[in-house]
């Protein structure tokens, strides 16, 4: 009722501001809706191949190709059983092998990289800046460049066809990415903690073990998770060092599916593919926050 009596000249600045805000909110709402439509479509496209693989792992072979549907007409659960035993060696062996290599690699990585990171972030010693620069340089070196001499070294040690070439380098802090990640984290911890402990007569090892380690569990966990995922998926290392099918890790075994010509076992092959990425997806779902923070932290700060 007041509106009728108001002339433009009577509009207070407060009302102009309110009208502006309302118009802006309305626009923002519309923009948000458009964004959601865009994001939902994009994420469906992104996730579709994975869902298609899951569906195909449950379809009979003649219904896989060209079938875009994500719901099998009949559930062929025996694909999983058939796939598990499709190769001369059962997948029980491959999963066990992958687990052994991965668990030992993760342990090695976390211990050796946190040692190095502790030295770089908290201890003083001569030559530190040079070593640090060299460490950062190794981040850039492609694995392919060191592969041949490493192979020759392990060949001479008689380590080919064992897991040692895959595990021992992990105990020697081979992955500078993790060192860098932990240094970033250690640097955020207050220095006073170390100093107080030092005054109380703690040795550097005691400080590492009783102060730095317990306070850095998120960083350790992040490194462990990434190290798990990368080792579990690693293909080139096992491809070079393991020749006996008994020793194969899961990715190598999967590759045998496509190189055994003539055998069309697409359902079982997809079934094993799904099982091979299942541990990674589980880890991702459980530790999503740590993983995403880890990327942002190592990438930016």
């Amino acid at each position: 009722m007041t509106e009728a009596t108001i002339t433009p000249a009577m509009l207070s600045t407060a009302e102009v501001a309110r009208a502006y805000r309302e118009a802006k909110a309305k626009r923002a709402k519309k923009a948000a809706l458009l964004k959601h439509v865009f994001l939902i479509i994009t994420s469906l496209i992104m996730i579709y191949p994975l869902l298609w693989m899951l569906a195909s792992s449950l379809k009979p072979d003649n219904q896989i190709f060209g079938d875009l549907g994500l719901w099998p007409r009949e559930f062929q659960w025996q694909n999983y059983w058939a796939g598990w035993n499709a190769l001369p060696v059962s997948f029980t062996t491959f999963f066990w092998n992958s687990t052994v290599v991965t668990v030992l690699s993760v342990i090695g990585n976390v211990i050796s990289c946190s040692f190095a990171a502790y030295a770089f972030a908290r201890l003083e010693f001569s030559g530190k800046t040079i070593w640090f620069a060299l460490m950062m340089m190794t981040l850039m070196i492609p694995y392919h460049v060191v592969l041949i001499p490493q192979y020759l070294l392990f060949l001479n040690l008689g380590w080919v066809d064992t897991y040692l070439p895959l595990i021992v380098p992990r105990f020697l802090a081979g992955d500078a990415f993790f060192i860098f990640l932990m240094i970033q984290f250690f640097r955020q911890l207050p220095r006073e903690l170390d100093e107080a402990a030092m005054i109380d007569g703690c040795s550097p090892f005691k400080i590492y073990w009783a102060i730095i380690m317990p306070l850095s569990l998120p960083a350790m966990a992040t490194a462990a998770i990434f190290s798990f995922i990368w080792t579990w998926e690693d293909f080139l290392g096992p491809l070079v060092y393991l020749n006996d099918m008994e020793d194969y890790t899961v990715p190598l075994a999967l590759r045998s599916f496509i190189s055994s010509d003539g055998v069309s076992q697409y359902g079982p092959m997809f079934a094993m593919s799904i099982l091979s990425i299942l541990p990674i997806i589980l880890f991702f779902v459980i530790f999503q926050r740590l993983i995403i923070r880890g990327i942002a932290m190592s990438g930016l700060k």
Partner: protein
Amino acid sequence: MHKFLRRNFAGYAFLSPWLIGFFLLAIGPILASLYLSFTKYNVVRPPQWIGLDNYFYMFQMDQRFWKALQVTFQFVVISVPLKLMFALGVAMALDKGIRAIGWYRALFYLPSILGGSIAVAILWRQLFNYDGVINSILRLFGGDGPYWLSDPKYSLWTLIVLAIWQFGSPMLIFLAGLRAIPQELYEAAEIDAAGPVRKFFAITVPLLAPVIFFNLVLQMIEAFKSFSGAFIISGGTGAPLDSLLFFTVYLYNEAFAFLRMGYASALAWVLLLIIALFTAIAFWTSKYWVHYENERG
């Protein structure tokens, strides 16, 4: 001397695993492969010094070397910018407290984590099969898809799409970068009636430049190094007609299929130099378009 030892002991003790690894598994092998690159070596007989012959052969006679370079460069030049554009686009849509951001972020990041796995490479081979999913979708729209895997004109696109699909990790880094841009700048621009395009080029791009640059370098190195996708999709050889002969695939085959370790070491050194060169170019050009905030004024 005693004091010197005591001051440095703890540091070097903690550093020792890394130091051993650095000498035995990083710098040692790099120098060893430099030496091997001047030899002919098939593992069975001891290395035989042949000077620069490997390099002469590589640059003057070896057509597969040039082919591998061309394929790899093509892959890097096409896939990296597309991937970064995608990553930035999605990151901008996700920015500014949109609802359910956690879900989107997780869904978009998942392919990055699975992308290197053999399972996904196998999946990709089937998706791009002539009777596969991609062509079925094209047929829905009345198109007729090519033989993606066996036609050398199209085969590289399967790997480019695979690379773009993994835009998640540059997206996360962009997202963190976008958060650091002060909102007031956008508000000020709005008051001056700047449109979204203007805001993007006048505020987002310059302020995000260091992050774009970081992602560019990182993704380029990753693209040069990529191996398993090309290896699996090409059946280990770079087929069809060497159109998927990534540099890494060629190197692997020379070393471990043909046991030409000397020549493969020369290839490895060329790869190292290419990556170093590209990184240097990225750093060098960055001063023209990257402005770090604390440098100004």
